């Protein structure tokens, strides 16, 4: 990819954003006095701010880039991550779980586990979570540095250091509040930075009706764009439910209704939104119980309409690629810099007569699927009159036959943004990377300081002591993230590893919470063994299954392949379903077989049946969480029906 040339106005916008982010950190510094101000925001933030931060904390760039990629690959069914996945889980968190999280005065999710069960579950959860946050932040940094390198031609190391320095300064100065404020800033930046790109894209394609016609063409011949080998019904990219109800053979995701509703809708989403401290922490920072409960509810509103900003661009890109006059193609996978030299040597050695043999050789050099006709054309042109190396490089890149879905959103920004708008859209992208890092670093801080350091290493120190440890942890967290970024930069599949680990940890954890919060009989031993058993099940399931087309290894099946799934997504959904069920059943059975260690009085405020109901009656009828939840759920159902 050619570096994009940025004008002065683009740099000015980028600088303005960075300046404000750092400025917020400094402005908030004078309000920070205790460790709780730094690590939990002293529970003082209004609901609309925590609500937007709740949503934005999850809106890392990996999500922005990834959802557009999925939109291109799978069409509108990607919206299920929002409409089936996120929304019901967020409403459940607000109505049923938040009273326990907030009411128990726990400062973190592992601390709640300690109150409800014992130190063992807390320890397992804090360690796995701390490791995940550092890796997630490292991968975010690596992705950002690569992007700056690719887009602006910045040196990778320089890009890595400068961005981590910015995050370090504002988190160190302003703590969690700073991270939350920045997330709100980022939320508006993303909405206002991406909206014009999407609008221009839609206008370019010719509106919604034309988009649907084009997508019907895509669905019937997905091979033409190297999207899929199969063919589908015309509505496979433009209907959310019909292709999935038709069965896993009839939609590009390769999932059926059960995997979608139980695997994604129930296990994965509830596991993520209800137990992941990174997002739950935002609600815990709210100023009172009703603000805490409104936090996820407020977040559902933008969450419901966000597919327009993040998924639609992917669909627009595939539609554009079918219109010949638009001169757009889905970005091809970039060829590794080191692969060019041997491939170009083979290109030059080849003649039109040996084109077939040369094609195989060049494909092997590049390590990607190549377009045979294009390679033959390059060989022919070169043998007639020698082409220069840089031109050969560009032609070779163009001949790659695999799509680089993660590049879709950037290709659209490049296509539609003149100087000015370009700066705005790129700043939105950078903002999401940086706040992804900051979110993870602040969550890591709290977990390390309260759940590991204070709990096991140095209990009963002064608050000042923990305040300083919290700040030191920020530095350590960022340094560790930099190491993880370098680690990730050596492994192209680091992203896959971390997503896998997320699935391993989160899916069974939700079963632990469900039983712990709603069944007083759940015992500490039951929860601990259930959680370990569930995680082990994930690992085993992964080792025994594989998605069709993948090689055994990091993607699964490394012991023995028992079953094949039509796609990695289907494999993921089923893995989560299994891990959840095993954890649920194990916890249930072992709890019945072991004695309770905590009395009813100790569990008050931690378990549903032992906690006095909150009095919502004093609030206005429409502001009560349960009422709001039902209204939002109905809105979500209507959305599903519109795009049925």
């Amino acid at each position, binding site marked *: 990819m050619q570096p994009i040339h940025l004008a002065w106005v683009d740099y000015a*916008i980028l600088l303005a954003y960075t300046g404000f982010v750092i400025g917020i950190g400094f402005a908030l510094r004078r309000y920070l006095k205790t460790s709780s101000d730094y690590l939990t925001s002293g529970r003082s933030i209004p609901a609309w*701010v925590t609500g937007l931060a709740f949503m934005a904390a999850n809106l890392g760039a990996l999500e922005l880039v990834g959802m557009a990629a999925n939109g291109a690959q799978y069409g509108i069914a990607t919206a299920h991550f929002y409409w089936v996945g996120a929304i019901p889980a967020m409403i459940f968190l607000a109505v049923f779980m938040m009273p326990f999280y907030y009411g128990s005065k726990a400062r973190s999710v592992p601390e709640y586990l300690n109150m409800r069960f014992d130190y063992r579950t807390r320890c397992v959860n804090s360690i796995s979570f701390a490791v995940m946050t550092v890796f997630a932040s490292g991968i975010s940094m690596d992705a950002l540095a690569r992007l700056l390198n690719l887009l602006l031609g910045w040196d990778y190391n320089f890009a890595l250091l400068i961005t981590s320095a910015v995050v370090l300064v504002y988190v160190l100065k302003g703590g969690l509040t700073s991270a939350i404020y920045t997330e*709100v800033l980022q939320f*508006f930046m993303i909405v206002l930075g991406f909206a014009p790109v999407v609008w221009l894209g839609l206008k370019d394609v010719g509106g919604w009706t034309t988009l649907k016609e084009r997508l019907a063409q895509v669905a019937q011949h997905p091979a033409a764009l190297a999207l899929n080998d199969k063919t589908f019904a015309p509505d496979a990219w433009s209907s959310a439910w019909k292709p999935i109800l038709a069965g896993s053979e009839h939609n590009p995701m390769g999932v059926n209704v059960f995997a979608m509703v139980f695997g994604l809708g129930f296990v994965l989403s509830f596991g993520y939104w209800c137990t992941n401290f990174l997002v739950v922490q935002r609600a815990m920072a709210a100023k009172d119980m009703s603000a805490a409960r409104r936090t996820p509810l407020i977040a559902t509103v933008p969450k419901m309409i966000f597919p327009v900003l993040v998924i639609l661009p992917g669909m627009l890109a595939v539609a554009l690629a079918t219109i010949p006059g638009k001169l757009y193609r889905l970005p091809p996978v970039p060829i590794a810099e080191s692969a060019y030299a041997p491939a170009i040597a083979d290109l030059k050695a080849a003649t039109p007569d040996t084109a077939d043999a040369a094609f195989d050789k060049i494909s092997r050099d590049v390590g990607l699927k190549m377009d045979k006709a294009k390679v033959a054309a390059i060989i022919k042109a070169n043998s007639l009159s020698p082409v220069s190396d840089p031109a050969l490089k560009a032609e070779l890149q163009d001949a790659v036959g695999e799509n680089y879905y993660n590049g879709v959103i950037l290709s659209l920004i490049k296509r*539609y943004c*003149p*100087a*000015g*708008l370009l700066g705005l859209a790129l700043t939105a992208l950078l903002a999401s990377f940086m706040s992804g890092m900051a979110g993870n670093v602040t969550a890591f801080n709290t977990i390390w300081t309260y759940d590991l350091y204070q709990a096991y290493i140095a209990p009963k120190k002064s608050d000042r002591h923990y305040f300083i440890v919290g700040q030191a942890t920020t530095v350590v967290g960022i340094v560790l993230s930099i190491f993880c970024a370098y680690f990730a930069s050596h492994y192209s599949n680091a992203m896959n590893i971390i997503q896998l680990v997320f699935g391993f940890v989160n899916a069974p954890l939700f079963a632990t919470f469900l039983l712990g919060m709603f069944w007083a009989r759940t015992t500490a031993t039951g929860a601990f063994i259930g959680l370990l058993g569930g995680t082990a099940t994930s690992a085993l399931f992964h080792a025994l299954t594989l998605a069709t087309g993948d090689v055994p290894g990091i993607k699964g099946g490394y012991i023995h392949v028992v079953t094949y799934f039509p796609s990695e997504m289907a494999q993921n959904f089923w893995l989560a379903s299994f891990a959840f069920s095993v954890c649920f059943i194990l916890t249930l059975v072992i709890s019945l077989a072991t004695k309770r260690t905590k009395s009813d009085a100790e569990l008050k405020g931690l378990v549903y049946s032992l906690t006095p109901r909150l009095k919502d009656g004093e609030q206005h009828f429409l502001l009560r969480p349960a009422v709001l939840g039902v209204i939002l759920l109905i809105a979500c159902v209507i959305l599903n029906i519109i795009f049925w």
Partner: protein
Amino acid sequence: MGLDIRWPIGIMFTLISVLLVIEGALAGPSPKALGMNIDLWWGIVLLVFGVGMLLGAARSGRKKNEGGK
């Protein structure tokens, strides 16, 4: 928390909108943006948003001061 977040949001977007409007006015319509002067128009949208945020922050700040005394 002591700082109303609408201040930084409002100031930042107002600043960015001014940059966009200037760029739009100088550069004119762009063939990339389907022949529209997207910088100018979007700059105006951002300006409205930024000023709205500032007004909101100013109003609630005044209310708080009156309520406190």
